[in-house]
């Protein structure tokens, strides 16, 4: 299991990946906004998304788990 963490303080704009979806390494899992800039949160490894733990509009920080990949 690999946790995809939010890289910085900000707000989730969109969640791109779906539970059960197979993602490649570096594929965008979610898009967040920080300092009025859109940041792509990417999968650190290839695998299957087993859990999405954020939703659009949610505030996040570096301790927030965005998704879990198996």
């Amino acid at each position: 299991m690999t946790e995809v963490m939010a890289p910085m303080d900000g707000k989730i704009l969109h969640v791109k990946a779906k539970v059960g979806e197979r993602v490649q390494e570096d594929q965008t899992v979610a898009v967040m906004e920080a300092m009025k800039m859109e940041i792509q949160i990417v999968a650190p490894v290839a695998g299957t998304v087993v859990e999405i733990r954020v939703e659009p509009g949610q505030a996040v920080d570096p301790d927030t788990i965005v998704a879990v990949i198996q």
Partner: protein
Amino acid sequence: MNEALWAGFEGLLLGVSHLTLGHLVMLVIGGLLLYLGIRHGFEPLLLVPIGFGAILVNIPLAGLMEKGGILRTFYDAGVLTEIFPLLIFVGIGAMTDFTPLLENPKILLLGAAGQFGIFSTLLLALALGFTRPESVSIGIIGACDGPTAIYVTSRFAPHLLGAVSVAAYSYMSLVPLIQPPIMKLLTTEREKNVVMAPVRKSVSGRTKILFPIVATVLTSIIAPLGTPLMGMIMLGNLLKESGVVARLKQASEQEIANVVTLLLGLSIGATMQAERFLKIETLLIMVLGLVAIALDTVMGLLFGKLMCLATRGKINPLIGAAGISAFPMAARVAQTEGQRYNKKNYLLMHAMGANTGGQIGSVMAAAIMLSVLRGLGIG
């Protein structure tokens, strides 16, 4: 009767008969600034009033910059007295979050390194025959910080205000085009791929309140002539961090900043009269301004490389490019470029630290220059 009609008709044509080629060129330049601001979104808050000011002041016989003219009144009241750039600084302070810098204070060094281009450009301007006060005003374009450039130039070389301001704001908006090739050229593949650990917020509210007060006292003791600049930016930041004067904070970053931006832009545009602006030195200033910003980027990156080495690869040198002021544009460029080379690279907050360090650095650089000029008996 006929003579009276003819005289009246001639009166209507006075404007046209006084129109020179210089006026026409400046009308086109004013239009170009408006085009860049409106169509391409290049610093529109400034380029739109500057462009329109430039058009207004190049209408023959309108006299907007003559004594008593509306633009001359704005200029005398706000630019000559340095009030406009200083009020803008209160707003910038109220908008700036110094947390990333406080989380990692050594990044301030990148903000200092990012100012060396200013001094190199100063020497270059001196070599090209500009006077000392003019050279300082040209070098400060490298700070990539409009209000600082305006403050220094209005003090030492007000006749260059139009050219220096247009160069400063144009290049600020072009930072996303100017910096990436330099960043690519000066860093190795390995350096570009350095992933930095996330910035965690551990700075206390008390530290954030104390920072603007301590920073003002310390920097002002070192360079007293920079106190107006540093004092105003830190006052704005104290309004933000104290949390007890929300109305003043809002007024500083919105109402006051908006009104002053409009009047400052118009006043700067008003200095672009054909006979003052259409000179070879304007062209030289544009070139030197570009050199200054490029050199600042180079110095920030080189220092970033040094810090990367000193920390055994914990700092990505790309954030060094954000050591120039241009806030928050330069930090965004570092994020974009960092993620271009490594998708897992999130440099934004680190670069914000360097960027806010650059803001302090540019004010300090200006303060040091003011002190040096005072030492030389100028100003």
